[in-house]
């Protein structure tokens, strides 16, 4: 039984979506979080070392960081084929896209948001415009990040673009708009939205 440590309308919401896609047995453990504006508080029930969400616990095994949680879950709950397994031809690209999410895309958006530079050569990431050029190029050529088939990588990217949608940080892109629509039209997303508040 997977316990998802969750706070409504945050990055943990998309893991309800993923768990629904996987048809994995899970419970939602709603926790308080410290917000960027200083409100809220760290919840002692949350095993995340910095009191953030998402985190999961699998019979006492704690996992955090979105790319790690996505990989851990798709490796454990394989029946719906939501993440290429070891030995699959798409495993390499799958791992690359998951790692790119945490190591490049998120820092790129954060750099833009907080107006810090992206020093080439020092930073492991690139400016958001360059990252999005790569993502848009990929999604202009195929319906999902890995090609024809939806995967957990799309759970991370599509929900993020959905969340940022109207923000001036997001480049306007028909490819991204149709991608987000395609992913968020999935029944599992609808079921997840209904459960977001607990």
């Amino acid at each position, binding site marked *: 039984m997977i316990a998802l440590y969750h706070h409504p309308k945050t990055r943990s919401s998309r893991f309800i979506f993923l768990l629904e896609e996987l048809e994995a047995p899970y419970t939602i453990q709603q926790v308080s979080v410290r917000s*960027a504006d200083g409100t809220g508080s760290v919840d002692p029930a949350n095993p995340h*070392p*910095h009191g953030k969400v998402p985190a999961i616990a*699998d019979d*006492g*095994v*704690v*996992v*955090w*960081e*979105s*790319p*790690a949680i996505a*990989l*851990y879950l798709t*490796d*454990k709950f394989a029946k719906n084929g939501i993440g290429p397994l*070891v030995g699959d*031809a798409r*495993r*390499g*690209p799958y*791992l*690359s896209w*998951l*790692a*790119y999410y*945490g*190591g*490049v895309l*998120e*820092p790129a958006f*954060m750099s833009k*948001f*907080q107006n*810090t*530079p992206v*020093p*080439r*050569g*020092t*930073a*492991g*990431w*690139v400016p958001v415009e*360059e990252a999005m050029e*790569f993502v848009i190029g990929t999604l202009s050529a195929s319906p999902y990040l890995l090609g024809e088939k939806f995967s957990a990588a799309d759970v991370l990217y599509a929900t993020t673009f959905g969340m940022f949608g109207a923000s001036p940080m997001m480049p306007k892109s028909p490819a991204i708009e149709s991608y987000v629509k395609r992913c968020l039209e999935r029944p599992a997303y609808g079921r997840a939205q209904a459960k977001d508040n607990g």
Partner: protein
Amino acid sequence: MLTLYHAPRSRSSSIVWLLEELGEPYRIEITPIVYGNGQGQSAPETYRRIHPHKKVPAIDHDGTIVFECAAIALYLADSFPKARLAPAIGDRRRGAYVTWLAYWAGVMNPVVAARFRGWDNDSPTGFGDFDEMENFMAQTLARHPYIVGDSFTAADVLVGGAIGFFSGTLLPKREVYDGYLERLAARPARQRAMARDDG
């Protein structure tokens, strides 16, 4: 055949170490990059078919391209389980293993960059809190000899590489770091990798 696209004295140096730990035959393709100090030059545009931003490292394993250090580590350790560089899927340490690889990439790297560049002089950036991260890392290494537990894994290549790089500068002096770095430096694969960094 494994090919590593590599530039000496860069992040790809960690992957040379990882490949030495893996023990499989590999070749190095020296790839030009522009370094942080402005030295070097950009790779040709053709390299973009390997890495979208012309960075290193990237690997080609019989036609499968993988980039991002954490992805390369995950891919190689799982593809060659004989090297025992990762807990197997289903092993209770697998959770910590995938977490530390993602934490290195998504938290440690940006938080260290912020501290290095002074973006967090007034308050922590949105990347996270450097002191919180550093404390957590030190507490983890106080509990067991390697970052995931009692055995060396591919996560130690990345986390150990970062600690080694910033030891004595951004990172406070700690016995746990000294012990950890000694254990890693003693590894023959680490020494072979340092000798191979120039290709």
